[in-house]
């Protein structure tokens, strides 16, 4: 089974890598063929990735959401899924050159992480875990797509100011559209992000009798939520669109990354007590 998982993981990795390359070619040379290939490769990668994750679920006997490797891989899966949806919805493929690299980098990171199948520690044996992480994959996937769109916005906006007929201006969609797309993607991510926090709280209440304990991970997910809440409000009431909006979305995704990687690698040392208490039973 492990061999199958590795095989399909390679399919996914190769799919994302080649899709990224194809989207770059599309961006550079406006080759419609490359754009089409990008979509096909990303879709093939996604299917392979799905098979790899399902295989792992069967092998491990639990959903692949419990260690760094599993979640990073699922994170990349979520980004590609939301991305392909966004591509269909917004009818634009240049986005691929900005979003698929994120998925590719994440699956690359996953590929070097330890892949051992770990049995679930008692605290994780809860169906709330599955709901919790599923919502996280969608929320983070949406935020990653919005992040790519915001970078595109910032480039396109500058491009139009500096050189209206230059490379950037002729390749990227008009800034107003990018801004709207990024808003709509965040509108998908935000309710899911809220569910991530709520289901996490309910799970913690069931497992430890405390729905909120200010451990760094939940705290950073709250900070992420604050940032996107400000994004949504400022946009509706103050018409904070465009540049400021794009920077907020950029910042929001940095908070997402920090919640996942920063908290584990930078803060865990400081908070080892909390982590030992909550997670290191063995």
């Amino acid at each position: 089974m492990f061999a199958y998982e590795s095989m399909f993981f390679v399919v996914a990795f190769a799919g994302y890598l080649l899709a990224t390359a194809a989207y770059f070619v599309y961006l550079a040379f406006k080759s419609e063929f490359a754009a089409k290939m990008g979509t096909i490769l990303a879709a093939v990668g996604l299917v392979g990735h799905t098979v790899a994750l399902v295989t792992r679920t069967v092998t491990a006997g639990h959903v692949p959401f419990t260690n760094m490797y599993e979640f990073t891989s699922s994170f990349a899966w979520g980004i590609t899924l939301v991305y392909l949806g966004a591509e269909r919805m917004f009818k634009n493929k240049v986005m691929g050159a900005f979003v698929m690299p994120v998925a590719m980098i994440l699956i690359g990171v996953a590929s070097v992480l330890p892949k051992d199948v770990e049995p679930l520690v008692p605290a994780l044996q809860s169906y709330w875990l599955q709901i919790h992480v599923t919502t996280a994959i969608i929320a983070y996937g949406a935020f990653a797509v919005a992040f790519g769109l915001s970078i595109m916005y910032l480039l396109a906006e500058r491009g139009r100011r500096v050189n209206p007929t230059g490379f950037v201006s002729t390749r990227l969609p008009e800034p107003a559209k990018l801004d709207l797309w990024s808003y709509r993607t965040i509108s998908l991510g935000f309710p899911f992000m809220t569910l991530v926090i709520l289901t996490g709280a309910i799970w913690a209440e069931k497992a430890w009798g405390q729905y909120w304990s200010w451990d760094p991970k939940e705290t950073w997910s709250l900070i992420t939520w604050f940032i996107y809440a400000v994004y949504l409000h400022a946009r509706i009431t103050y018409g904070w669109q465009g540049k400021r909006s794009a920077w907020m979305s950029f910042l929001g995704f940095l908070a997402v990354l920090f919640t996942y990687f920063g908290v584990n690698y930078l803060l865990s040392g400081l908070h080892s007590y909390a982590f030992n208490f909550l997670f290191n039973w063995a």
Partner: protein
Amino acid sequence: MPKKTSPSDPVETSPSTQTSSGLWEEVWAFFASMKVGLVLLLVLAFATGLGTIIPQNANYEWYTQTYGQGFATILYYLGLLNVYHSPWYVGLLGLLSLNLLVCSINRWNGLVRETRIPAELLSEDALPRMKVARTAKIRGSEEEIREKIRGLLRRRHYRTAMLEKGTTRMLYADKGRFGVFGSLITHISIVLILLGGLYGGLRGYRNSMAVNEGDSFTIPRTNFQVRVDDFTVKYRPDFRPQQYYSTLSILENGRETKRQTIYVNGPLVYQGYKFYQSFYGWTVDMQATANGGTTSISFKNPDYYQIPGTGWVVKMHAFIPDYDPQISTMYTRYASRTPLPNNPRVAYILYQNGAPVDAQVAELNKPITTPDQQAIFTFTGYREYTGLQVRQDPGLPLVYAGCILMIVGLFLSFYILPRRMWVAFKPQGDSTLVTLGGNGRKNNLGFEAEVEALLQDINS
């Protein structure tokens, strides 16, 4: 960026300048302002982040060692060593709640108005100025076209009404009107959750305790006793723990009223108190004899014990359930081969007048004599204890209600997109000039597409 306002936009109340600027009005306007809310959110985000960078509630000594005496003192007085419970952080949350409440009250009437069928017509020149506006000349009488559009709108699940004033008639239609309450409900839900958290924090009970099998404990202000009947760990073949089980009995006046085996994610609930399986460990018993007297002690954690009347201190350093000298290298001196008590040992450190003298791994029931023959101590036994978290949180119903409301509110906000429109008709020969104006609030683009499709349907 300047903003186009229209009648159904969420209007922010700004401090009114024409009315008497009483203090009360100013304070009210301050809290009703979304700008204040956004600043609060940003400040909270920053403060919350600070609390994760500075380790919270550590030993004060740790802070002085890490940050230096001066800086540690400053951090202490700023409340940064316990950010989330410091008065200013709780105060910020209070201000945020106030902001959300005042905002909700201010918006209530406007929102209700938006869900009602307007009583009066709009002036016809108002229509082309709305967020989404279209005019079309369509063949057919006014009556005919009006009924056709009305039918098409109804098929798209719009609620329609005819507004009349004198001889002018205008068609009104709306859809997804309850979506306007989404953000209000979400805001109220946040206040509920914060209130629930505050109430639970003030009136709730929480404690964690290590209890040996067979022992009982009581909880203040309750009339029942809890007895731990049994504790077991279920291991996987590789000795990693799979699940922990404690069997608890509740006793009222000595009579057993409830008995349940709890595990991680499966607590016992009794009279609002919840008992969670939380941790476990070993209790080590020790007897010490000195100057003709014998004392005994139970260690639940590594701890020091001064043998009475002597300068000797024994530190119970670790309990090793399955000692194996083969795997006990310098670094894994206290390693256990399995977690099962197959070959139990106790690692101890002996101090004389504060200075370590000896560190050994001792067998059970083998008396150990201090070098000066003054005292004898023996590790007499070991037992597994279970670690329980006991919680009673009267704020929980509020918090859960808040969670549910929040989901409802966000669903309304993001998935029920309110849209409303007014349609005016003017006969022109054998055709009718249709003027349509409307507002799709958050989704004018989708609304526009819908209007476009509607106009095409009329022509077909």
